[in-house]
Every structure is written in C-alpha cells, then in structure tokens.
C-alpha cells in the first residue's frame, strides 16, 4: 500500500513537471517568435477566428495584407474577409495555406493575388520564408509546405522553428510581452490587414504588353492545384492583381494567367488597368512602388468590394453577434488611423482628414466627429 502510494506520488509529480514544461515551452514559443505582420501574425491569428466565419479569404503576397482593407469591407459592406497572406509568398506556399485555412473555415470566395509568381522566378525562395512559415502550426500540411519550399540541405535551418528564434530574448520589448499575453478575443480581432501610412510618389506605369508567358513551371503547377482545390471544395476563385508599379515582364505573366483563367472558367482581374475607376492618386496613395498606403488601400478595397458583390452572392453579416470580432477589428483599425493622424502637425492632419471625407466611408463619419 505504502509502495503504491509512493509510486502514485512519484508519477503525479512527474506528470505535473511534464505539464509545466509543455506549458512553458508553448509560452516561450509564443513570446520569442517573430511577431511580424509580414505573414507570421496573419498565419497565427487565423486559428483564433470564429469557426466558419470567413466568407472571403484573401490569399497571396504582401499586396493582400497591405492593400485589402478588411475593416472597410466589414464596416461598409458587412463582408467577413481575412487577409491570409505573407510577404513574397509563392504559389506553392499559398496552396498549402489554403488547405490550412480550410481546416476550420469554409470561405465562399478565395481571392488570390498573383504578384508572387509574376515577380519571383526561383523554385526556392528564402528571403521571406520565415514570415511565410513560422506562423503556421505544425501539422502534416506544414510538413508538406516545408518539403516543397525548402531544399533538403537547408531544412534544419527552419525546423523546428523555435530553434531559429529562441535567442530573441535579447530583443524582447513590451509589445512582445503584450502580444504573448494577448487573449484569444484580441487575436480574433486581427484580420490580417496592416495599414501603411507613408506616402511615396510614383509614376503611373504605361502598359501595353501583348506577350504572355514567363511563369515558371512550378508556379503554373501550383496555380492549377489551387484552381482544382477550390473547385473540388465548392469555393469560387477570383484571381487578381492589386495596383502597384508593374513592369512588362510582370504583365506577361498576368497575360498567361489570364489565358489559364479563361480556359478554366475562373474569374480574373488585373486592377492595374482600373486606376481611374478606383480614383488612385499616384502622388499620395502609394506607400512604395509595391504597396498602397492606407488611403490607397481604401480606394482599392472599395473597388474590389464592388467586383466581389457583382460576381458573388455574399451575405451582409453586420449586426450578427457571431461576427463581433470584425467590429473589434474595425475599431482597432480606426484607432491606428487616429493614432497616425494625431502624430501629424495640424495642417497635415486637416489635409488627411479631407481625404477621408472624400472616401465617403462609415469610418469617415467616426473620425470626423
């Protein structure tokens, strides 16, 4: 009896220590991991979204999470969208992202940005790989991502993730602690959109490409896989190119994708031919040559919403308490915009506010009060 009690006590203590260790490792992982909003935060927060709440999944490169204003889509149209994207994301990672998304969500529409396959031609791309990988939870899907996007000789650099960023304890900030201790509700309120506020004057590209081609074999294979996957799972696929300073070479790829889309019966829109319709101002709506700033993203998102509502039947979920996280998301974006405006001098603030008035969004009425 005594021996049994002692054995039970021994295993209880060991079990408790094991549990403590596991919890500590999970917390350390959350604390020390990169918290970038170039893909890691987008990938982490997807797991905290209410089950089957995302109607429109925006996937692809940073053009998505910089240019698609999910707060505007919600406030003005009641569309529940999530920017599930990462910097310079190639299509083979996007394909597995889509599979990961569909574990807990059933989006009606998948909007795929095509900048990645147009601009980057290497079959293995490492510059932003961490931002594409480290937000994803480990699973068979992630294992497949890694074997597809990492050459075997480099695998140990990226797996386990924790081995790569465990030494970031040196650079911890208050924000890192805040994010590690964030509640599930706070994470659910993040929908991927990260507004930029810089203004960099750009030159409108003059586009007259007639050729098509330049897409790599690997990209084309995975584009086809994405098309097949969305069809098999009853999702509409909308292939887009967001506004940026495009090039002849990029346009050739888009022409090729347009051909594929036409052959497969998939919707396609290169919005680089719709600058006027959007009302984009090349002097003030771009953060840099590749991304729109907040003002540009509002114009583009308004245009995109029109495209989505014309093509697909999307519900307006405003007022439904199940989607309260989108209300919190919109409030957070408003706060970020207000913080930015408050950082300006009075003259600049007036000028920016006048731009908001011109945008005619519900966001406007809140900020101009």
């Amino acid at each position: 009896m005594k021996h049994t009690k002692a054995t039970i006590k021994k295993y209880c203590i060991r079990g408790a220590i094991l549990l403590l260790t596991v919890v500590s490792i999970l917390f350390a992982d959350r604390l020390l991991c990169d918290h970038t909003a170039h893909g890691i935060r987008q990938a982490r927060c997807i797991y905290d979204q209410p089950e089957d709440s995302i109607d429109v999944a925006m996937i692809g490169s940073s053009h998505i999470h910089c240019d698609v204003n999910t707060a505007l889509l919600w406030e003005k149209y009641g569309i529940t969208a999530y920017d599930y994207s990462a910097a310079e994301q190639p299509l083979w990672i996007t394909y597995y992202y889509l599979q990961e998304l569909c574990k807990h969500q059933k989006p009606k529409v998948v909007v795929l940005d095509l900048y990645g396959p147009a601009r980057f031609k290497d079959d293995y791309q490492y510059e932003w790989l961490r931002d594409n990988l480290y937000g994803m939870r480990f699973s068979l899907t992630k294992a497949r991502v890694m074997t597809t996007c990492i050459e075997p000789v480099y695998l140990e650099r990226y797996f386990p993730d924790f081995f790569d960023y465990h030494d970031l304890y040196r650079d911890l900030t208050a924000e890192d602690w805040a994010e590690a201790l964030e509640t599930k509700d706070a994470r659910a309120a993040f929908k991927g959109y990260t507004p930029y506020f810089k203004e960099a004057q750009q030159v409108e590209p003059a586009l007259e490409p007639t050729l098509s081609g330049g897409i790599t074999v690997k990209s084309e294979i995975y584009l086809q896989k994405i098309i097949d996957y969305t069809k098999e799972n009853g999702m509409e696929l909308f292939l887009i190119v967001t506004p940026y300073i495009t090039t002849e070479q990029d346009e050739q790829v888009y022409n090729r994708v347009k051909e594929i889309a036409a052959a497969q019966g998939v919707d396609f829109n290169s919005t680089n031919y719709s600058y006027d319709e959007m009302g984009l101002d090349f002097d003030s709506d771009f953060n840099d040559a590749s991304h729109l700033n907040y003002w540009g993203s509002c114009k583009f998102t308004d245009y995109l919403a029109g495209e989505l509502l014309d093509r697909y039947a999307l519900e307006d979920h405003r007022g439904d308490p199940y989607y309260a996280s989108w209300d919190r998301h919109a409030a957070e974006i408003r706060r970020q915009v207000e913080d930015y405006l408050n950082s300006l001098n009075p003259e600049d603030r007036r000028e920016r506010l006048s731009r908001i008035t011109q945008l005619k969004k519900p966001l406007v009425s809140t900020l101009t009060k």
Partner: protein
Amino acid sequence: MNFDINTFGMLAGSLLPYYLLRKNWRPYVLLFCSCLYCWFLSPQALFCVLAVTFVYYLLGIALERLPYPRILFAAATACGIGALLFLKNVPLLQSVASEGSLLTRIVLPLGFSYYMFQAISYLADIRAGKIKAETNFCFFALYMLWFPKFLSGPIERAGDFLSQLRALPEVRLFEKDRIMVSLRFLLYGFFLKLMIAERLSPLTEKLFADPGAYSAPWLFLGMLFYTLELYCDFAGYSYVAVGISHLFGIDICVNFRMPYLAVNISDFWRRWHITLSTWLKDYLYIPLGGSRKGTGRKYLNLMIVFVACGLWHGGGGCFLIWGLLHGAYSVLCDLARRKGWKWLTEGFTGWLLTFAGVNLAWIFFRVPNLSHGLVYIKRMLLDHEGVAVFAAQARELGADAWFWGILLLSLAVVIFWEVLSERKHLLAPEGLGTLGELGGGLCFYALLMGMLIFGIYGVEASHEFIYMNF
C-alpha cells in the same frame, strides 16, 4: 556523434525498432543503425571502419588459434599504430607534398583514432588472456561502430562492452528508471555543450586566431574560456553518449569525473579523458615497466606516455609540447610527493597549481603552431592596456551583459553541481537524482527551460564536438 535535429531523428529511429522488434535481433538492429549513422557521416569512414573491423576480427581469432601469437600481435599493433601516426601527420606531410599527388587526397577517417585504439586494446586483452576472441562478427562490429561513441569515444574495453550485448534481450525500457537516468545524462551533457561550450566558442575562436589584436586581460580570459569550453564540450558529449547508450541498455564508460577539481596532475589524469589515460596506462606505461624499474625509468616512461598522448591528438609541434608539458608536470608532481611537499600536491595550493598548469598547456592544444602559442603567452603576460580598451574589445567580441550573465550563472550551476556530486561520490548527472522527486523534477525543469531559451543552438551553433576532430 554530431548534435543536430538529425541526431534526434536517428535516436527515435533506433529506439522504436529496438524495443518493438524481436529481442534477439537487438544487437543487429543497433549495428544496422550504427552503420547507417556512419554512412550518413561519411561513406569513406564506414568503409574504413568496416575494413579495420574485419581485419581485427580475424586477427583476434588468429591470436588464439595460430602459432607465434606474439609476432602476430606485435605486427598488428605496429600496423595499427603506424597507420594512426601516419594519418595524424598527413596534414603536415600534405604541406610539403606536390599538388595532385596521392598524399594530398588522404584524410584521417572519422573516428579512426578511437576505434583503432579499441582494436589494439582488444588484441592486447586477448593476448593477455583477459578475454576470449569474439566469434560473432556482428557483435565485434557493434563494439567498433556503436554510434554514440563512434566520433569522440569513449575508448571502450571489449570485455566490458561485449558482455553487455549478450544481455540486451533482457533489457526493458521501463525498468530501473532507465528513461529518467538517461534523461539526466542527456540534459546535463547538453547543458554543458549549449550553455557554456557553444557560448565561449566564438570568443576563443577570435582570441586565439589573432592574439595580437587583443589585450592581455582578454588573452588571459581566452585561456580560461578555452579551458572551460574544452571541458564542457568534451564532457558534455561524453555524458550525452552515456545517456543515449543507457536508453538501449548499454553502459559505456564515463570519461570525466570533475577534472578541474583535481589537486595534482595525477589526480587530473584520473579524471580527464579517463578511457584514454587508462588505455595509455594499461597498454603503454605498464608494458614499458611502469614504476617497477626505478625512478629514472618511471620518469622516462611517463614522458613517453605523455608524448604518445600528445601525438594521439595530432601531429605537429603543438601537441608534442602539450604532451611534454604534462609529462613534466607528472614528473614534478612525483618529485614533490617524494620530497614530502604535500602543500604542492594537495589542498587549495595543489588545486591552483594544477589548474594553472593545465590552463597553460591547453594554449598549445588550441593554437595552430608553436610560434603562435608563444606569441599568445607573451602577449598574455606582458601586454597590458587600459580599461577603455578592455571594454571596447568586449563589445567587439560580443561579450555583453547577456553573455556575462548567462555564462556566470551557468558556470555557477555547473560548479555547484559538480562540487556537490563530488562530495556524494557521484557523477554530476547522478547527483540530479538525489534531490527527491519534486526537487529533482524542478531542477530538471529549470535546466531544460534555461537551455531551450538561453542555449546556443540552431543555425548559428557549430553542431560539432571538438574531440571529433581527433
């Protein structure tokens, strides 16, 4: 054995079939895994070790059955030692060989130093009648190839190792706290390697590469750092090898017993690289006559042994100087004992002298050549610059507050643990098991979490252990 994620994969890949398949297959499963491990390291190394294994397997049987065993043993030993000496000095020979010649393509096979000494000790033990020749080739091959000890030892004795293989079918994973004991050795070994050795490695690399660029205090610290790095790296590896072997029911020799607590040089060599020092004692020092042929002969034998020890580590003047230094220390230690000068060979003074002497000798172990070593020592003793220079060089070396904090805390843990374990006549990892379930569990947790967060591993770490280069 290297340390990277593949090591854990190797371990898991070996444990599962070992315990799930038929028990009688266990030695063969381990042999297969060891061959696979060696293949992934280097196919040439696998070919070489299998060739040596086959030859010495036949030699072992031949020693028992053929006439003129003395001649056979002498020839086999001479060939083995000759091959080892040749391969150790290949880098020197290559520096004078003509480009493209056969000599320039020769490299010392991985693990050669260790398994060649094992093979020689195997034959010597048969010759001395201590053991019988192993008739099962696979068992002998496993003795030579066992993967946790393949790259950096310990140098196992055939009798101890082979007798355990026949008992492998009786081993149970969940008996005698096997998993906990193994985990303690693994944890402590990795703690030494990742918290201390890997942390010091970039600094010693810079300090020893260019001593002219650093001030005397930093060079002095460099000497200390290397002393710690070498111990933590090698002992860490050894503890990991013990822990892994224990998981399979194989107990290999412990190679270290807190050597830097030694109070004289003899004590040091009873604690440092124990399997090498006992090999040299049993197969070189004693056959030479040991201390049985007078004091003068004893001192000569000591010098021969330590020169051989130096040359085992590598060719060139530096290892020779290192060996000569240790030989001289041993002679002086014996002289001091004979004179009754106990204060030199016991207590705090004995410890201080031993630690200082070992530190100085390690300089020659580390530097690429003799003149470099002399420059290092000269600058360390003579060139002193101000505090501002020290601080500026600290920044350049990356020795910031985090570095010092984690290093000193880790050293405090290790020193505390080793002293405490020494008093209980236990090894440091065994000491973890004497704190009770809760105390031991919390210590385990603290060491593990400390290592996971503050340890140096991943892409920026070296993965390799220093002694695999020998």
